[in-house]
Each structure stands twice: as structure tokens, then as C-alpha cells.
């Protein structure tokens, strides 16, 4: 099985809202795949459709080799799902909750759970609805990692948590389940930057791109051209130049296809360029540039 999660022209329409439009994505096995995008982009809808919580309006999803509509207990026993808005059985004490979950998983490992409990410092005798949000996420994660799932699906799991807790949880996921494929939806780019191997960007239900994080970082540059004299922007610029702006003698834009030939191309567009600076961008700045570009109608490429 090469891809534990793949979609083909996936669409999901609610009354008066088209939440997903032709989403085609393939998550490689063992990847940490981050689906990013602004609030309301359709990330949660996508995940709920993957897990058969919603039925696709069109297209299809294949999860662990099975059509999402036929997803059953054998597949769910290999999937760990944690979401920020998941309703946990609040009346259960943490200890009982974990013991109860254990009964459904043939691959449940008590030693893994003991390690997670030690790491997360979970109070076993407290009810879930008496826990803080961070503790609840930890309990849900413990109940999702102790059986070493093949696919871990996380929907904004770390929102509102402090940095230390977030780092601890991320580390625990990667360390406990090194062979698992992780699919993570988030709008908080800083939380995924350090560990996502693949990034997909969803905007208004449409997938703008999906690629390896390294390749994405390699092709995006923040370009600053310093001219001899003030000049206006040329009438037509390449479409991979995002958000171009001119301010006095300085022209700036985001290059979305930067490579070794780019410097020559920029110089040909700006013959009066005194200096061309190409800075490496963080994931956050890349996405901000894409969002800005999308809002201006230029598109995100």
C-alpha cells in the first residue's frame, strides 16, 4: 500500500455552501502531511469526509485501501483521530476511559500507554469533563496512540495550547509512532513547520498546492530588487511572482518558482536593478503570501 490516504476529485456541498471542490490529494506512507489554510477553508470537512463522518457529494476517498463510505471497524482500529472539537464522554474518569478504549483495539499496548501516561502526567481518577483542554487532548491522544495506529489524523489538535505542551505532544506522536502516517489539519503554521514533511494548502475548498515541505521552501523566495531610480511596475509580470509592490527604488514580490535561472529572469525584467536579494521564507510567510495573493485575485501558485 503506497498511500494510506488518497482522494480523487472529492467534493462536499452543504446547503448553500460548497465546502470542498474537486480535492485530489495523495498522502505518501510515513509522511507527516499538513493540510493548511485559513479558517473555513474546508480542512475539517475534508477530514470528516475522510473518516466517513460526512458522505462525499462527489469524488471518492480511499483510506487504508478502502473507500471511505465503507470504512469499518477493521480500518478504524488502525486509525487514530484527535480533533479539537471532538466530544469525549465527559462522565468517564481518565483511567476508565483508557481501559474502555483498550477493549476495542486488538493491538493495544499497555507498555505504550504506561509510557504515555508518564509523559503526559494524566490524572487517572479525574473525569474527562473536569480536565483542562490540554489535558483532554492528552487523554484523547493517549487513547489514540496506545495501539500504534497506521494512520493518525489530527484536526487542529493543538490550538490554544501553550508552546511547551504543543512541543511535548508533537514529540510524543513522532516518537511513539515512527512508522505511522500523520495527517494534520491546522491553521497555525508555526505548530507544523518543524515536523511536517508535506504541505497542502486549501483555500475555499480548493487545493492550491500539495508538495513536500523542503521543495516548497526551496521554490519560494522573498525577492527585493533595488533600482537605480524610482520606477513603476511593468504591465505584465510572470504569474509565479506573487504580490508585487513598488516603493520608490525598491520592488518586492514573492517568487513561487525560484531556481537558479530566476536571478537572470529578474534582471531581464528590471535592467536598471542595482541589487537583487532573494531571502529564504518561513512556512508562515509563504502561506501569508499565498493568502494575500489569493485575496487579490492573483491566485496562489
Amino acid at each position, binding site marked *: 500500500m503506497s498511500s494510506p490516504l488518497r482522494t480523487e476529485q472529492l467534493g462536499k456541498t452543504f446547503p448553500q455552501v460548497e465546502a470542498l471542490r474537486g480535492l485530489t490529494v495523495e498522502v505518501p506512507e510515513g509522511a507527516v502531511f499538513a493540510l493548511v489554510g485559513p479558517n473555513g477553508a474546508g480542512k475539517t470537512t475534508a477530514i470528516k469526509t475522510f473518516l466517513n463522518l460526512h458522505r462525499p457529494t462527489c469524488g471518492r476517498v480511499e483510506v487504508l485501501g478502502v473507500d471511505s463510505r465503507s470504512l469499518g*471497524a*477493521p480500518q*478504524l482500529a488502525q486509525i487514530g483521530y484527535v480533533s479539537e472539537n*471532538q466530544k469525549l464522554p465527559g462522565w468517564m474518569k481518565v483511567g476508565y476511559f483508557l481501559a474502555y478504549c483498550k477493549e*476495542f483495539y486488538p493491538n493495544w499496548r499497555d507498555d505504550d500507554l504506561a509510557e504515555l501516561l508518564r509523559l503526559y502526567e494524566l490524572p487517572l481518577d479525574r473525569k474527562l469533563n473536569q480536565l483542562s483542554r490540554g489535558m483532554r487532548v492528552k487523554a484523547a491522544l493517549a487513547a489514540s496512540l496506545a495501539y500504534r495506529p497506521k494512520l493518525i489524523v489530527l484536526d487542529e489538535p493543538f490550538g490554544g495550547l501553550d508552546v511547551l505542551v504543543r512541543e511535548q505532544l508533537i514529540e510524543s506522536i513522532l516518537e511513539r509512532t515512527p512508522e505511522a502516517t500523520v495527517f494534520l489539519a491546522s491553521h497555525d503554521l508555526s505548530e507544523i513547520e518543524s515536523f511536517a514533511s508535506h504541505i497542502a494548502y486549501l483555500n475555499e475548498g480548493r487545493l492550491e498546492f500539495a508538495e513536500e515541505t523542503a521543495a516548497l521552501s526551496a521554490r519560494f523566495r522573498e525577492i527585493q530588487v533595488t533600482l537605480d531610480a524610482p520606477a513603476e511596475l511593468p504591465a505584465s509580470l510572470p504569474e509565479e511572482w506573487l504580490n508585487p509592490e513598488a516603493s520608490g527604488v525598491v520592488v518586492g514580490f514573492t517568487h513561487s518558482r525560484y531556481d537558479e535561472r530566476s536571478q537572470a529572469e529578474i534582471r531581464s525584467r528590471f535592467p536598471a536593478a542595482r541589487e537583487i536579494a532573494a531571502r529564504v521564507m518561513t512556512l508562515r510567510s509563504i502561506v501569508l503570501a499565498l493568502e494575500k495573493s489569493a485575496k487579490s485575485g492573483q491566485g496562489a501558485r
Partner: protein
Amino acid sequence: MHEILVIFKKDVRRLWWQIGAMLAMSAVVGCLDAGRAAAQPGVAEGLLNMVLPLVWACLVAQAIHGEPLVGDREFWMTRPYRWGRLLAAKALFAALFVHVPSLVTDAAILAAHGYNPLHALPPLLVKQLLLAGGLTLPAMALAAVVSNLTQFVVGVPVLFATLAVGTAFRRSYPPIYVFQQPTVAVLGVAVLAVAAVAIVWLQYRRRRTRLSRILAVAAAAGVALTIVLFSQPVTFPMSMARVPAASTHLTMMLLPPDPRTVHGPYSRRVYIELPYTVSGISESDRGWLTAVSMEIVGANGVRYVYDPPRDDFEVGLMMTVNRFTRLSVAMPSAAYERIKDGRVTISGKAGFVLYRLGRKLRLPAGATRDVTGRMRCSCAYDEGRYDYGYLDVFCDSPYREGLLADIRVEEKSKNWLWPGYRASGTNGSPTPLLAWLSPLERRQQSYRVTVPRDWTLSEILEELLVTIVPQYVVGRAIANFKAVDIDLREYSK
């Protein structure tokens, strides 16, 4: 099985105090019923009979809501539950905490009243089937399409209101009483149960909430329609189908008017009293008029049809041949006005249940007797609060038809039959004054006793002869009748 038990144990752990409260309530109902020797229950028992089914329904709903089927944020939905096992766990919960307590309570009540519960197993199991179809399954279905107990509790009256609106078109009495008609009730329960099973299956197998909700509304409408449409013409043959056909051929004839029975109009209805006679019933048997279908055709061609009757009370039913042999037809005044001036033709058919009289049994005051093996009767004097008391003849039976009997009280020396009034306590009507959960059908006839000045109470009780003649259903028969050249005004006022 392991998964079923895990889910079941979890539900018990969560709902333990509700289960405890329900069991305590069942025990109280059982104790009250077991100690009752009267047709009508006390207020506490009557109210508990109303509340306990609601408690059962809420308990089932809470168990279902342990894993809610509505919404997309529930924890369990992304866990490896198998739908069949989840449903089985909920069914096990309902069986153990609704049906088993109900059955055990019923058995205890029967035992307390002197019946062997094993011998009365058929009606006890039929009751559990009706309880499943009319309460457990609909509660499961309703809980499966709402997301919390508040919505569920709101949904119950909404469902009931739907039924009430549907039935109000047909019934002049409160729709709740429609369940007194067992065959219609069974039909309604059957429709409800089938729809509930479909909804439960859809929700557990596919979680198709919108479709299930549409189905739930359609089911409520279906039950209302069943009650409205499937009235006497259908239910009569169905009721009668339980009784084997008799080989007897009956002839029914309408008789000349009897001025003593004619009375004036009431509530925009004119009462036409039609005396009749039936021949063909053997000496040892009696006939019990159970249903009538009738057509009155006027000289001007105007037809008035009683098929189906608009109201069960429009035709005098349950009248025994040789005792009250007349059909009392309540005709709307407007229809009567259109048809009364001129000779009419009356034709139709009447359904009879034929029964044979059993051995007469004498019941002394203060005694209890097993009358037929299926019915026990007792006779007791109740002093009352005034200068007279009551002789209460009380009978119970686990079987509805087990109470068929002719009960009489007469003064030996004068051979004079005393009039009594009847307080029925049959099951089926969920009002605070009737114990519809009781496994016993009850019947009580009371006779006012005033002790004359020169008599003692024991003397007067000795003078009274209480006899019970059990009646056994032997078959059914339908008789056609036709009378021409009738002046309706002679049969009414």
C-alpha cells in the same frame, strides 16, 4: 459478544442510579398491584402506571445517547465499533432494564393473586411484544434521531400530539382512549414497530439522520392513519379472526318499535332504537353482538351508510342477545332530517361472538373461588361511609376473554335480581385511574346493600345469592338483516 458486554457494562455504569430508581418504581407498582383487590387502582398506582413507561423510554434513550447517532463530533464514531454489536448492546440494555423487570413484576403480581405465572405465559409474552413494539422500539428510534435527552423528551409529546390530531378527526372522545380498541392498537403498534426497526437499522447501519427523521414523521402519520382508517370494518374481521367460525347460521330480524326504549335527541344526534331478534343460536349458547354494518335508504333515494361507523358509540355494541336486543343508532340530526319523511329500507349485517355458558358457581360473601382455572372471583362486603354498604364481586384473570361471565346477585326468598354497577379495570387505557401495565384484567360489580331494621348484616348477606356463570367463546357468526317500509319516526323522538 465481548464488545457487546463492554458497551453494555459501560452503559450500566453510567446509568446505575437511573436503573436503580426505575427498579424501585417497578417494585412499588408491583407491590401496589399485588395487594389490590379492586378494579380501579389508587392514585399512586395510577400515576406510576403513567410515569413508569416514560421512565423506561428515557432510560432507553439515555443508553442510546451513550453513543449518539446524530452529529459528527462524537468520540465513538471514529473508534472501531461494529454497528451490529453496538445495537445489540443497546437492545440488551433495553431487554434487561425494561422487559425483564416488567416480566418479573408481572409474574410476581400474578403469583400474589394466586395464578401460576408459567400458565399465564402467553399473555405475559404478548404484553412484552406490545411493550417492545409500542414503547422500546419507538423510544430507540426517537433517541436515534435526536441528539440529547431534552430533544427526546420534547419529541415524545410531539409524537403523541401527531397521533392525537390524526385520531381527533374520527373520535369524539379523547384520542388516548383509542388504545382501548385492542385490534386498532395492535395495528398501530405494528406500524410503529416496523417503522422504528427501519429507523434504528438506518441510523446504526448508515447514520442517515435526515432520512430517518423523515421516516419518523411518516411513521407517526402512519400510525394516526392506521387508527383513523382501520376502524371497525377491518378490525372487526381481524378481531373475529381470532375466534373460530361457527357452523351456526343466524337469522336476524328487526322488530316493531318499542316505545319504552325511544328517547329524544342529544348533542345534535337523533337516536334510532331498533329492536331485533336473532334465531339460530342454540339453547345452551348466547350471542354477543360485536359489530354492525348498516345502510338506511330513504324513499327519496337518500342513503345513510354506517360502514364504517363514524364513532364506535354510534351503534350500540356489546349487547347480549336475549337481554338488550336492540340496536341504538345515533344518527346526525341533519342526516335524519333528510331521510325521516318517508318509508325507508334498513339493511346490513351484524357480527356475533357466540359463547357457551359454563357451570354456575355460588360465591358466598367473604369467599374467593377459582371459577374457570383462568379467572378468580371474590365477594366482600364494604361497609361504606353512609348507612348502606356495598357487596363487591371482584374477578380477575390474566386473559382478557377470561373475564367473560354472567355475575348475578339475587335475594333467595324473593327471587329478585339486584341491579349492580360495573367498575371495569381492564388494561389498555393509560389514564391515572387505570393500571394499564397490570398483567391482570379486572372486573368489579358492586351492589348497594341497606340492612333493614329487623335484620342483621350477616342475615342479609346470607339471604343474598351471588352466582357466577362463566362464558366460553365457541365461535363467530354473521347475520344479515333487512327491513322494508320502515317509518323512522316511530323508532325515535
